[in-house]
């Protein structure tokens, strides 16, 4: 899952970025409204966390501009102004959720997960599909047999993306784009390695290869 974090505070921004990275979200940080807006339009983010009090251009403007260009990436607004006036304006501009400062990182993670589920058309709660239960806080997976397996960071990111996009054809490029953040070395061939590792852990039937196109996740999608 790739997340764009737009936050101007020189301490809070990087802190949040590393917290999100640790939780298995490939997170890019932008520190002002103008760069942030451009990044949100160019990169295929799964979700954007947007602070409203930004230099250059207010978060609300950025959000309005995205929605005007039909950029439908889910957006969670962070703001210190939690008057109803601001909430109404935020949701009217097209926000998907709203988190008032100060918040705890866990709270933000809960909101991010909920919005991601909703945008994938899934019900809120623990992520489970095809007999697998993904524990997002521990970054581990429970198999049908009840066996609990720890996952590496990239494995976790990959599996979560698969589970949120069950039954959909996902190319190696798409997977790379949504698993790695902007400044990392992107070699789509590495994806094959990780897919194979997942197959070893979860069993061979869950991830199907479509030659020359990519992968499809799910039991019945063969």
């Amino acid at each position: 899952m790739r997340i764009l974090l737009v936050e101007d505070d020189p301490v809070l921004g990087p802190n949040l970025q590393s917290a999100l990275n640790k939780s298995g979200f490939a997170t890019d940080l932008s520190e002002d409204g103008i760069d942030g807006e451009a990044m949100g339009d160019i990169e295929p983010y799964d979700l954007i966390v947007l602070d409203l009090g930004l230099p250059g251009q207010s978060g609300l403007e950025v959000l309005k501009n995205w929605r005007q260009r039909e950029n439908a990436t889910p957006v969670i607004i962070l703001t210190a102004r939690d008057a109803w006036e601001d909430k109404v304006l935020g949701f009217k501009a097209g926000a998907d959720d709203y988190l008032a400062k100060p918040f705890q990182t866990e709270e933000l993670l809960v909101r991010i997960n909920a919005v991601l589920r909703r945008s994938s058309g899934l019900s809120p709660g623990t992520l489970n599909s095809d007999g697998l239960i993904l524990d997002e806080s521990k970054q581990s997976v429970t198999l049908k047999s009840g066996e609990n397996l720890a996952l590496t960071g990239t494995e976790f990111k990959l599996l979560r993306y698969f589970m949120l996009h069950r039954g959909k054809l996902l190319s190696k490029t798409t997977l790379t784009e949504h698993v790695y953040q902007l400044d990392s070395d992107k070699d789509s061939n590495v994806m094959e390695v990780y897919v194979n590792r997942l197959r070893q852990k979860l069993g061979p039937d869950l991830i199907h290869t479509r030659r020359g196109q990519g992968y499809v996740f799910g039991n019945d999608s063969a």
Partner: protein
Amino acid sequence: MTSIRSRLSIGLTILLAVLLLGQWLWLTFTVKELVEKQVIKHLQEETESLLANLNIDKTGQLQISDAQLSSNYQRAFSGLYFVVETKQKTLYSRSLWDFNLVSQRVGTGVKDISYIEGPRQQPLLAVSAGYFKQGQQFTITVAENIDWMLAEKRLLVRNFSLVSAVGVLLLLLFQAGMIRQVLRPLSHAQRQLKKLAIGDIDKVDERAPDEIRPLLSELNRLTNSMIIKTRRSRQSLGNLAHRLKTQLTLLNQIADKDSVKQDPQTRQMIYQQTEAIRQVIDRELKRARVSGFTLPGKGVNLAEMLEQLSDTLNLIYQDKRLAIHWHVDTNVRFNGDREDIQELLGNLLDNACKWCQHQVDVSASMEEGLKIVIDDDGPGCEVDDLSRLTQRGFRADESKPGSGLGLAIVFDIVESYDGKLLFKDSDKGGLQVTVHLQSSLPD
């Protein structure tokens, strides 16, 4: 009597009345004087021509040669009479017939004017003059019926009164029109002030006569500076909150550090403290933001506001599938601050949405100000808590997660609008909240 219009009207009316009364008195007096003088002059001439035609024989008999005198002395009760008196004899004109005209005897060279009653109750003006002729001293009195003169005077007075009355009426109308014309800029300013109060305009029209323009300019300046000050203080309060809360978020993140994570008690304490500080900030900042009726309020469109709020709440409580129904009577008007009423409705609706199963009903109507009723179908409130909710002391209980702070702010807003807040069990099973607010500044 504080109205300039009535002061001017009454002053001018009194002046007009005094003027007209004086004129009436002067005119009637002058006319009487003038006519009387004419009559007296004529009567005096008559006495002289009588004197010229008077003869006294040796026996002392008085004789008048009629030929050169007015025939009116011959015709009975004609209205013109004479009496000539000596010490021994009195001669009456034929026109007196059998009437005994009482006359005054005066000395030679003396003239006397009197009003007497003549035959058939004729009002007479009489001139008596004393003469000395042929060794005899006598008095000649000539009297004339002045009925015609009195009638003429009455007619004149009546006509004059009539014309005066019409004149006064016209003048009063003209005066009222003129006063209205002169005071029109004031009425205009008055209407503008009313519009300003209900928020139809945000500054008054300064086009007015020199006398009141400075007043209007000053009013505009004050209003404007108040708006700017409020906006500026709201902005800096907002900035302060933003900075403080960002710092608090950082504190929370320090609690997320691995070294702290191993000590859950410390971590929890940090969270509790940041939350406590947040509540203090929110409570105080929001209280400072409540403006009440200090500014000329724009008429708030409640229907639009409720629509936006229910859209927002539907998104916040997406997983709950809310059914928020709202109804605003067409005559509902609220002229307070937009943010105040939004904060009030937002907090109350948020509470209702938090506790309800699916349904929240809102209605707004005008009943001694603005009345808003919010119903939900949630679990409601224990009777004990219900009565405590309305107690002002309940505000102290802000530590309760969720509802405390919002309700405290609602109390602040209701208080600043001189309003009332009532809680009771709803027909829908949950809680019913009723808010009464003054809908505009008292006049």
